[in-house]
């Protein structure tokens, strides 16, 4: 087992606010890690630092032995991280298939001259793009129409397409920012099995999630964040009983330590 991703002492400050303040954690191959914490703990900021949308003020992000700290998001994506966003960031007016094709941009296979002259290379690569797009939509269990614009889809379907788009990148590490938010029970169960199938492809997953039931069932390790740093790390069973975690969620001196069921 080697570390896919190693984050050390990551920091970012917006003015005086230290959103991420010395976060360190690592992700092993084929591992599912959950990052939890109260709202404003810096989870999404940490994701944005790792994927290059924010330039960290200090710290290092090492992906598969390569330093990717502060690089362009596109270069980081090319290096092997794909992600979804907290609030869906799909291309609303483009079709479902086109949205998934976005994840395949780095496959190449054609250039502008091929496109202008419709060379056999172009026809071949377009066919492959379409076939792959269908493949990933099947993989995430998407059953809706595929040639219609994304804006016509329900929220749950849009979430599926966003994961399909991220998977089409075929990277070794997938960051999911609140994948279960807004999903109903059945959809959450689908997400659970989907994440396991993604892991079985050989992809490590880091997810931010507020649904404790899902987190406890799915993740192998949990990183708990508060005030920009990791306050606890361990298996779900360990984290559940961790005093610092309980304090972060429920406040100090509270004797009614509830089990972290569905939050």
């Amino acid at each position, binding site marked *: 087992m080697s570390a896919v991703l190693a984050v050390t002492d990551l920091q970012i400050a917006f003015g005086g606010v230290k959103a991420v303040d010395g976060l360190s954690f690592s992700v092993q191959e084929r591992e599912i890690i959950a990052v939890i914490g109260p709202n404003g703990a810096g989870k999404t900021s940490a994701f944005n630092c790792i*994927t290059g*949308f924010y330039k960290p003020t200090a710290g290092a992000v090492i992906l598969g032995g390569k330093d990717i700290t502060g690089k*362009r*998001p*596109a*270069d980081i*994506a*090319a*290096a*092997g991280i*794909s*992600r979804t*966003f907290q609030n869906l*960031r*799909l*291309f*609303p*007016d*483009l*079709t479902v*298939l*086109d949205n998934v*094709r*976005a*994840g395949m*941009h*780095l496959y*190449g*296979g*054609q*250039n*502008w001259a*091929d*496109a*202008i002259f*419709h060379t056999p290379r*172009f026809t071949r690569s*377009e*066919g*492959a*793009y*379409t*076939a*792959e797009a*269908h*493949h*990933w939509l099947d993989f995430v269990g998407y059953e809706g*129409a*595929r*040639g*219609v*614009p994304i804006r*016509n889809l329900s929220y749950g379907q849009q979430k599926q397409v966003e994961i399909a*788009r991220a998977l089409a*990148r*075929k*990277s*070794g590490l997938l960051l999911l920012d609140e994948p279960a938010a807004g999903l109903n029970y059945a959809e959450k169960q689908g997400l659970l099995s989907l994440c396991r199938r993604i892991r079985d492809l*050989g*992809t490590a997953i880091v997810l931010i999630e507020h649904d404790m039931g899902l987190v406890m069932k799915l993740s192998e390790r949990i990183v708990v964040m508060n005030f920009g740093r990791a306050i606890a790390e361990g298996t779900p069973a360990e984290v559940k009983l961790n005093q610092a975690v309980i304090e972060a969620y429920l406040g100090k001196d509270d004797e009614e330590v509830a089990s972290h069921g569905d939050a």
Partner: protein
Amino acid sequence: MSENVDTTLAPRMTRPPSSRLSRLFESRQLGWVALGIAVSAPFVIATPYALNVMTTAAIFVLLASGLNIVVGYCGLLDLGYIAFMAVGAYTSGIIAKAFDLPLIFTIPAVLVMTVLAGLIIGAPTLRLRSDYLAIVTLGFGEITRITANNLTVTGGPSGIFGIPGLLKIGDFDLQSPAVFYYVTVIIVAGFVLAAARLGRSRLGRAWRFVREDEDAAEAMGIHTYRVKLLAYIFGAIWGGFGGLLFAAHLSAVSPQSFIFLQSALVLMAVVLGGMGNMRGVVIGALVISLLPELLRDLAAYRYLAFGLLLIVVMVFRPQGFWPSLGYEPERRKPDIPDPAGATEASR
């Protein structure tokens, strides 16, 4: 969030074409019909005036198809597009006149100069988004015109005239009005087809991803800056060739041809026709260039009528005459096997 595009202008057609008529409009053969109309137009009316108007309209279609790459596909609001036409026109005019060459031999120089112009204007400005980009491109457009107005090599305010024709072999002169019209139509058709094909390719999709959401595109590994620069360069090449044809058509180039109004008119053609859809843009360009001529009977009121018509169209059809289609065929190709290696993580 990407603020590149006003969502009220974005395509919104959301269902497959239901009627036979709308299916006809989406048919692939429609381009041939359009070409047929363009080719047969001189058989209907072939007065020198009509040929002149039609040639100008064809050149205008070329400009609009180029701007559609920048504004329609990639969502970069360019208010100084006519600068690229100026670069093309002046480059071909100056070189052809200095070496007394037929204009056709200046094509490589026009290509080089427009690509350069695209890089020079695009490289510093494309880091900006939306409104800022619009203002900077507006500035560059004016800088180009004023530079042409003040340099000696461009002939100052009076410009260059007596530019040699496109090509002359023996008695066969490409410059005679009817022949020149057909040459223009063929060149323009080629460029329009190329632009439409680019729009349906991997690069064209990348442009749309950038237009819809720059950050999400970036997260998918699309180098948005590079992709935007490519859109700009392609737009510049299209504009440059428009300039070359313009110089050939009038055999004269002067700074008055490249005022801001021209940029605005080309942009109007793109928006009116339907941003991002090459068919709509061709229609838009024809309307913008031909309508003032058709309204000539109204004399002084024709621009009033023209303006009112534009307002009415934009109020009742903000997405343009013919916006790009929001759907694609659902059918799968069963002959393509599940891609091997699709399940393999690659890093």
